[in-house]
């Protein structure tokens, strides 16, 4: 054992470092399950905040769900929102401190079920915030129940015989709805299951945070993610399942780019 430790010690040296993490990501043990996508996305956000030099002006809004403790991992000021209310909380923060960078970090249950109204209306107002949407088609923290994005036929704790249209309706493609809203500036769907996908997701998250400095509307990044514990698969099986079953319904790529829609008011203010 000590032989292995010695060998590792020889390898783990500053001169051998080829890949690191931002100091904005705290040196703490995350509570996420091995194989979960949250940790990767957290790292990307922390990297982007450091790269853009906005640690001292960024305020995060964490959700209810697995990412509730995001505030333990990214070293910025945070407000922990009630279930689904993150876009309203972010609106309140951004409206009274418009010079700050404000982002929400939400899961599918939070953003697309209980918080659908807050999500749609924040984007429709063109709130100058970033929204990071982790879509893993299941409730993780609560214990694997059906989410609004759960696939037809998918087995969860509350759809033990598979999601059934007659009983449960259809999986909600909320990002497609978001892209239709005039207040959305940039809407994209990414994933983090391969090195290439992580690079693309990093670029998208960086773009969202950069655009949000220009106050041109809401920047929305969906990350199609795995929940191997909830899905009851190994991490590798989860990646394969996501590619095979989720990507056809939730195809990756940009849905909208170029800022919120220009409009002509129907009637100018009465003077």
């Amino acid at each position: 054992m000590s032989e292995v430790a010695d060998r590792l010690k020889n390898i783990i040296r500053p001169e051998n470092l080829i890949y690191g993490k931002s100091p904005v990501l705290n040196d703490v043990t995350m509570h996420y399950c091995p194989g979960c996508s949250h940790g990767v996305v957290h790292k990307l956000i922390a990297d982007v905040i450091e790269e853009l030099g906005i640690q001292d002006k960024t305020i995060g809004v964490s959700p209810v769900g697995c990412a509730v403790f995001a505030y333990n991992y990214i070293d910025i000021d945070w407000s922990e929102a009630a279930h689904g209310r993150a876009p309203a909380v972010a609106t309140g923060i951004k409206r009274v401190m418009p010079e700050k960078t404000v982002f929400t970090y939400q899961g599918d249950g939070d953003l697309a079920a209980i918080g659908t109204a807050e999500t749609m209306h924040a984007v429709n107002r063109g709130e100058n915030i970033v929204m990071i949407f982790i879509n893993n088609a299941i409730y993780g923290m609560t214990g694997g129940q059906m989410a609004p994005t759960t696939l037809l036929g998918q087995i969860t704790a509350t759809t033990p015989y598979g999601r059934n249209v007659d009983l449960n309706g259809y999986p909600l493609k909320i990002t497609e709805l978001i892209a239709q809203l005039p207040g959305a500036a940039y809407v994209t769907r990414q994933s983090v299951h391969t090195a290439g996908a992580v690079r693309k997701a990093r670029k998208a998250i960086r773009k969202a945070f950069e655009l949000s400095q220009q106050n041109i509307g809401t920047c929305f990044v969906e990350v199609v993610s795995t929940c191997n514990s909830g899905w009851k698969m190994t991490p590798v099986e989860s990646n394969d399942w996501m590619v095979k079953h989720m990507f056809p319904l939730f195809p990756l790529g940009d849905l909208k780019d170029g800022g919120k829609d220009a409009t002509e008011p129907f009637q100018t203010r009465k003077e």
Partner: protein
Amino acid sequence: MGELRLMKGNEVIAEAAIRYGCDGYFGYPITPQSEVMESLMALRPWESTGMVVLQAESEIASIHMVYGAAGCGKRVMTSSSSPGISLMAEGISYIAGSELPCVIVNVQRGGPGLGTIQPSQADYNQATKGGGHGDYSLLVLAPASVQEMNDFVGLGFDLAYKYRNPVMILADGVIGQMMEKVELMDQQPRWTDQQVKEITGSWATQGKTGDRAKHVITSLEMDSHIMEENNLRLQAKYQRMKEEDVRFETIECEDAEYILVAFGCAARICQKTVQLAREKGHKVGLLRPITLFPFPEKVIAEMASHVKGFLTVEFNAGQMVNDVRLAVNGRTTVEYFGRMGGILPSPDEVEKALLHKLIGE
């Protein structure tokens, strides 16, 4: 002397918020308090003081906008009426649990359910016993005049920041809709960034600078022992409110044998009842609680040793009467009289109830 105007209670809330230097208002229209946001939108304070005004998509969203903005150390508020306050219960619990200061105005209407748009005081229990989940209390101010609608906005913010606790102004449809003479305060400047930092810099989310640890606004704690400590800290705060910030008014109580206890518009009606009863030779006084939480239980307990009885007059099925009974603790008679559904009794009707239930005529 400040500027004098004839104004509606709801309009005064808007005017007082701007003049006090409030940073933001987030709300959703509901009768009978929609004039609050309508007045703010017409006055456009974002062009004068820089105050933010936003119409949210629901009361749920508006209270969580208040949560977010209050967490930045900004002086923010919302207003609504009974059904809207029920929707806000979640957010109010989070605000209390996260110990954030803000002002919430409830211009009460009759319930339950959609109820009526007529005035009521049926949200007394909701306001004073929490209203949402968990052990928490709001500091509750009950205005009885348009002047107090003005005064309690500033007082509310002062108390909210003294305790880092949400303050509710529990008005009713009468106070919100009626017009009275009001003396307005002079325009105060909003807090500068420097002031916000000095006052709230130890906890608010204003961006983590290199000289301090990150700030997190949350009511979540997974360690049961720490969660119990958090609860004990909240309870100690509510105890301090009881010691330092009980407010009430007494009218002709010095020699009184019978005490009417009433708040808000009910107290206005009872004021006339006191006069009518005294004309007939009955020694009647009025105790008007101004803070409903903390409740003026000490003064009631003192009075209980020498008066013949209390009659609470409230526009609900008898809610405050339970707090009076707790304070009196069986030492004398405590009766209730009230009307519901938006009906306000006349001073004569209250006097009849007083004679029948308490004086025994």
